[in-house]
């Protein structure tokens, strides 16, 4: 097959799998083998067989006969759903994996396997889902559901009798080891035994928390844990042969209605803080039981939460942060949720039912939202409202929609209206969907579309003159994330879409994909709902209730065993680097954060330094001190020692610390001015290619030796010229080729450029761009002369070293049939039409794509987009994070404008302009940006606005577009006429491509607040904090006043501008200085004072800080100092030395339009 041949054989399975024709093969095989259950049903069927006591036996007797032929093929074809269950396939798969990958040291792999039992454990969990505890009676029971006390009648049932009994487990163990006798994996399987016994032992502890534990399990990692119990339990269960082979459960004992009730309820509100009476009991019991869990599960929990710890064990004890509580304020109280949910059960799946089982459409639905639901035939069923409170909640949820639309379309004459900014930072527009869909839709912070109402045809889109695209931030740190451990990950058989809240259930056994509209079977396992512990409610599974979910992937999603976290630090130690003094701060920072590096026991760390030579460090455990190995032959660089350069982080910790302490002093005498970056990178590649991982390059100058050497291309005298800016593209393809090689070997390269001179970032950046790394640039870095950059460097490093990581990742973006992606923006390599290869994925990088409408969307009322990110976590687990966004399709231009998202449009335009400036020229790009504004205004004028206004009229939703475009033109990336260093310009361009939208908007159009008179008005209550909300001000000097203090939030830096006549109280109470004159010019922090004003200001600053990943630095700027210019250049509405003010820009647009 092509994959191994072309050098990407090692890459993890792309989550999209192969194209449709290839999929049919195995599918048919399965249906013929197991006609009763169909393809996905295969695993349960095997296990159900009562005549065979162990499913392993079942496997060995049956599966190979039908599957083995396919098996190997499937592996190469990137098929994920190879269904032979039980433990036999992993060894086979693994055996196949080894030859296909680049020959790694065998010892290394052995280690891999011992420490990490990747397949055995998950498989074990999946045993048979606890069907016997989940009968299909839920339909009868549901109407009578009531919030029951925690000790429901079903509670005793919960601990399933059949926890892995001794014979069961041992049987499992032996069988597996028999099958894999030739491989070294025996050890790992035997690991399972202690693991499962532990589970059994702590099971009483679990018992303590009856239904409430359940409740807590829903939103967070808890659900995973929960399922583990079920799965573990199943071994005994299947051995007992409780279930008949038909696959339909017969046991009638239901695990109590109370479970169900509590489950659904908490499913929505667990973190919202509106926990009902059972909440308090839930918290202690769940935590106590989880404390007892064995290491494996704890580790998993921890990791699922990662930085987002609130979703883990303690999901019952709410820790809402700002975003959370903001969002959930609008949520109806929990009682409503359950009430809404319950009527569903009583309809035995009529004809078509939308999957989002949130409840019936309220009777007050507007025509618009009724249309949106399309063919669901929803309204025909009498939908009794269980209570008045729900009705009102539903009304509340809906009432805003038409008004919003009217407001969004209100014509605004830009020449007359001067106050355009909302008082609070602009929020993403809400798509015009029914309230149920809105509720489950993906968060705009993760997934945003430039047009929240998708035009029906390309013609309509062209008419609107707005770009259509998506902005994604898929690996963002989340507060809560449902993690699903499931035997079969349900996906569309044809287009491989993951099941999501927007699919339609035709009946209980079939669902219709919302992207390709083809009908699929609901696999048996999916009928059981682990959250409510009920059977026959596939529409209530967490996958169908949440637009953002994470699956723990099985070995079908791996092409090789999940890689360990491997970090290599490449440090420039030439004279220039030593001079800048970064080394000391880097070593300090790494020393502090060494324990925070994401990883597990397999994590490896290595160091490499370079000047005109390449130095390696032998850190093998047992050495008394680190050994430096120097390779001088930079034309053909080689690795002096193969197994001692990358060392286990745990075992060699002392040596690593030794090295970090001695490193800064080692090169102080260095007189070497050359830098052999290229050869050092090649060495790094050789070191890392067996495993993949992350390479962090610290470079301080232009590479001058060996492969990839660069020449200075910048002409300083041309920095301010308004003429064409040249050299925005790379000077050589060395770095691009290198990055692609890295991407193929799953190596991500992050670049830290700390240079005082031109270092040709345009060329160097390629190394990170195509290997999915990140780029950091500190112009004029010097540890003494530039404390601001040093502080930023330290803060960035702290975040960089401790942030969550995903390895060997791929992302696929799927769209509803008719839409297609044609351009990608961001740091990655586009491996095939919709598959992005990301060697590393970090929570701070975002992506953008542009789309076109190939086929008319007349038949569909909803357009959906799904981004699925398959990655290996730093703990060595393969995971899939799936985001689904659903948007309405409209056929009126006015509706398109009403749903336009001005911020997303600005960001997408910026990305397009960057492409344009690299491929064509900067002035072209600037013209294109201006034309975007002109085109939009004239399109609106000629098509929508029927009023004959004389001014410049735009719909209210888009009133900020001209302002934002003007701001873009004044950004470093696009500005002309002002002195801008080439590297800074290129870096600004890189940032546009990778920063998430909120951050980007703050950089493009900073938020300006007045701080000296912060009042309590509109204060935000977060936990026990009070955050004042001063109104946003326009970025114009006329909004400033000498007697005030103003805060400007530029994304990565805060400026606090203090006016000359600023009132003394502010200076005294907040800055702790007696008067204006005594404020130092380089002040960069706000002292912690006990005064009311200081507390308010700090609360506000902290709140702003909490909304971003990297911490900001604060500069206090006095009115009369030279630093004033840096502040005033951000006031985009004013006229700079060369360029136009906002008014002039509007006049220009008006001229062009008329």
């Amino acid at each position, binding site marked *: 097959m*092509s994959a191994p*041949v*072309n*050098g*990407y054989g090692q890459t993890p399975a792309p989550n999209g799998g*192969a*194209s449709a024709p290839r999929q049919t093969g195995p599918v048919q095989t399965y249906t013929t083998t197991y006609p009763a259950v169909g393809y996905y049903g295969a695993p349960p069927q095997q296990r159900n067989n009562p005549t065979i006591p162990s499913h392993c036996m079942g496997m060995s007797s049956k599966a190979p006969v039908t599957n083995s032929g396919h098996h190997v093929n499937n592996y190469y074809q990137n098929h994920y759903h190879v269904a032979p269950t039980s433990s036999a396939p992993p060894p086979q798969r693994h055996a196949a994996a080894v030859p296909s990958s680049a020959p790694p040291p065998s010892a290394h792999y052995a280690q891999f396997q011992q420490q990490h039992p990747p397949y055995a454990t998950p498989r074990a969990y999946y045993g048979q889902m606890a069907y016997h505890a989940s009968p299909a009676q839920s339909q009868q029971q549901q109407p009578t559901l009531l919030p029951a006390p925690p000790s429901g009648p079903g509670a005793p049932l919960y601990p399933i009798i059949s926890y892995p009994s001794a014979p069961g487990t041992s049987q499992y163990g032996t069988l597996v080891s028999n099958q894999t006798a030739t491989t070294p994996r025996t050890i790992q399987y035997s690991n399972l035994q202690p693991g499962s016994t532990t589970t059994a032992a702590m099971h009483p502890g679990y018992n303590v928390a009856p239904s409430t534990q359940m409740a807590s399990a829903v939103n967070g990692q808890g659900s995973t844990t929960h399922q583990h119990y079920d799965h573990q339990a199943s071994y005994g269960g299947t051995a007992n042969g409780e279930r008949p082979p038909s696959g339909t459960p017969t046991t009638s004992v239901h695990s109590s209605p109370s479970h169900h009730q509590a489950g659904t309820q908490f499913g929505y509100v667990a973190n919202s803080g509106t926990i009902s009476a059972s909440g308090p009991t839930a918290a202690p019991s769940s935590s106590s039981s989880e404390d007892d869990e064995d290491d494996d599960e704890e580790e998993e929990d921890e990791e699922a939460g990662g930085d987002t710890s609130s979703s883990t064990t303690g999901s019952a004890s709410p820790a809402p942060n700002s975003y959370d509580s903001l969002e959930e304020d609008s949520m109806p109280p929990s009682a409503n949720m359950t009430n809404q949910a319950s009527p569903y059960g009583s309809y035995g799946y009529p004809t078509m039912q939308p999957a989002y089982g949130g409840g019936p459409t309220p009777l007050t639905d507007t025509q618009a939202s009724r249309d949106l639901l399309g063919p669901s035939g929803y309204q025909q069923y009498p939908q009794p409202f269980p209570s008045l409170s729900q009705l009102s909640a539903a009304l509340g949820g809906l009432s805003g929609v038409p008004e919003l639309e009217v407001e969004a379309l209100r014509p605004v004459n830009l020449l007359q209206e001067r106050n355009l900014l909302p008082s609070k930072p602009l929020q993403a527009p809400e798509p015009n969907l029914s309230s149920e869909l809105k509720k489950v839709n993906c968060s705009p912070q993760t997934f945003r579309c430039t047009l929240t109402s998708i035009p029906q045809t390309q013609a309509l889109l062209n008419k609107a003159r707005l770009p259509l695209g998506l902005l994604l931030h898929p690996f963002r740190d989340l507060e809560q994330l449902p993690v699903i451990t499931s035997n079969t990950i349900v996906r569309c058989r044809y287009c491989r879409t993951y099941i999501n809240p927007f699919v339609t259930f035709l009946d209980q056994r079939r669902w219709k994909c919302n992207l390709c509209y083809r009908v699929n079977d609901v696999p048996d396992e999916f009928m059981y709902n682990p959250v409510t512990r009920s059977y026959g409610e596939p529409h209530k599974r967490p996958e169908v209730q949440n637009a953002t979910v994470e699956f723990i992937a099985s070995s079908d999603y791996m092409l090789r065993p999940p890689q360990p976290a491997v970090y290599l630090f490449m440090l420039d130690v030439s004279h220039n680097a030593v001079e800048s003094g970064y080394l000391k701060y880097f070593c300090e920072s790494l020393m502090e954060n060494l324990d925070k590096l994401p990883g597990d026991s397999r994590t490896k760390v290595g160091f490499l330094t370079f000047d005109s030579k390449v130095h390696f460090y032998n850190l093998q455990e047992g050495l008394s001190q680190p050994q430096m190995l120097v390779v001088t032959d930079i034309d053909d660089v080689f690795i002096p020692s193969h197994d001692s350069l990358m060392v286990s982080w745990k075992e060699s910790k002392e040596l690593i610390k030794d090295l970090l302490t001695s490193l800064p002093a080692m090169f102080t005498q260095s007189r070497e001015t050359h830098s052999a970056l290229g050869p050092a990178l090649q060495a790094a590649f050789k070191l890392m290619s067996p495993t993949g991982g992350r390479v962090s390059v610290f470079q301080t100058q232009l590479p001058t030796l060996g492969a990839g050497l660069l020449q200075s291309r910048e002409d300083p005298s041309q920095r301010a010229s308004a003429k064409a800016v040249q050299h925005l*593209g*790379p*000077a*050589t*393809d060395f770095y*691009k*080729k290198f990055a*692609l090689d890295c991407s*193929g070997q799953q190596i991500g390269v992050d670049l830290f450029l700390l240079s005082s001179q031109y270092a040709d970032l*345009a*060329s160097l950046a*390629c190394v990170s*761009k*195509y290997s999915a790394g990140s780029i950091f640039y500190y112009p004029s870095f010097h540890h003494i002369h530039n404390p601001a950059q040093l502080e930023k460097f330290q803060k960035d490093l702290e975040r960089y070293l401790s942030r969550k990581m995903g390895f060997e990742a791929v992302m696929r973006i799927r769209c509803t049939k008719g839409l297609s992606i*044609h*351009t*990608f923006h961001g740091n990655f*390599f*586009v*491996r*095939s*039409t919709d*598959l992005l290869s990301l060697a590393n994925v970090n929570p701070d990088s975002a992506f953008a794509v542009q789309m076109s409408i190939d086929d008319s969307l007349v038949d569909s009322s909803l357009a959906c987009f799904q981004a699925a990110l398959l990655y290996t976590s730093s703990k060595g687990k393969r995971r899939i994070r799936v985001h689904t966004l659903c948007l309405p399709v409209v056929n009126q231009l006015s509706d398109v404008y009403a749903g336009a998202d001005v911020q997303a449009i600005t960001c997408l335009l910026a990305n397009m302009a960057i*492409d344009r400036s690299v*491929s064509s020229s900067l002035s072209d790009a600037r013209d294109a940006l201006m034309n975007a504004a002109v085109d939009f205004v004239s399109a609106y004028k000629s098509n929508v606005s029927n009023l004959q206004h004389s001014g410049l009229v735009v719909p209210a939703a888009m009133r900020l577009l001209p302002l934002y475009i003007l701001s873009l033109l004044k950004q470093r990336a696009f500005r002309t006429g002002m002195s801008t260093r080439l590297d800074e310009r290129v870096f600004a361009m890189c940032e546009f491509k990778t920063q998430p939208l909120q951050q980007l908007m703050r950089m493009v159009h900073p938020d300006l607040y007045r701080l000296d008179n912060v009042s309590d008005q509109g204060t935000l209550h977060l936990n026990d904090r009070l955050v004042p909300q001063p109104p946003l001000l326009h970025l114009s000097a006329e909004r400033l006043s000498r007697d005030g203090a103003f805060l400007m939030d530029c994304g990565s830096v805060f400026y606090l501008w203090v006016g000359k006549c600023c009132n003394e109280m502010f200076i005294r109470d907040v800055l702790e200085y007696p008067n204006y004159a005594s404020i130092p010019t380089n002040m960069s922090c706000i002292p912690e004072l006990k005064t009311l004003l200081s507390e308010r200001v700090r609360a506000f600053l902290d709140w702003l800080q909490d909304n971003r990943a990297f911490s900001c630095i604060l500069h206090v700027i006095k009115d009369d100092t030279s630093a004033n210019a840096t502040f005033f250049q951000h006031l985009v509405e004013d006229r700079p030395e060369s360029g136009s003010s906002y008014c002039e820009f509007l006049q220009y647009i008006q001229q062009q339009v008329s």
Partner: protein
Amino acid sequence: MDAAVCILSLIDCCALIFLAVYFIITLSDLECDYINARACCSKLNKWVIPEMVCQCLSTVLMLVSTHWFIFLLNLPVAAWDIYRYVMVPVGNMGVFDPTEIHNRGQLKSHMKEAMIKLGYHLLCFFIYLYSMILALIND
């Protein structure tokens, strides 16, 4: 002499036809996700120069044999091939760049180009065939 030139052009044209077909197949493989962008581009970039040389060869042959009409027919294509090759930005890995090919509809335009060339070369093929027969008869 004339016949020899025509035979040579005919062979040359056959090679170009094969190349055009090869381009189309490889690009459609990429479109259908059978190969990845890196492999596809390195395969195709190898043949950009041979294609250019073949095209220039037939143009020059027509020039020296004073087939003015065919020469003028060939000239724009040869010019385009050279222009395309020369205009590749320094940082790119060739006419086909794996990092760019999926952006801005480049794949489609490459495909279109290959299709047009195939049609053109087929036309040329028959013209050469006709001239060859004519030349042979005249001899």
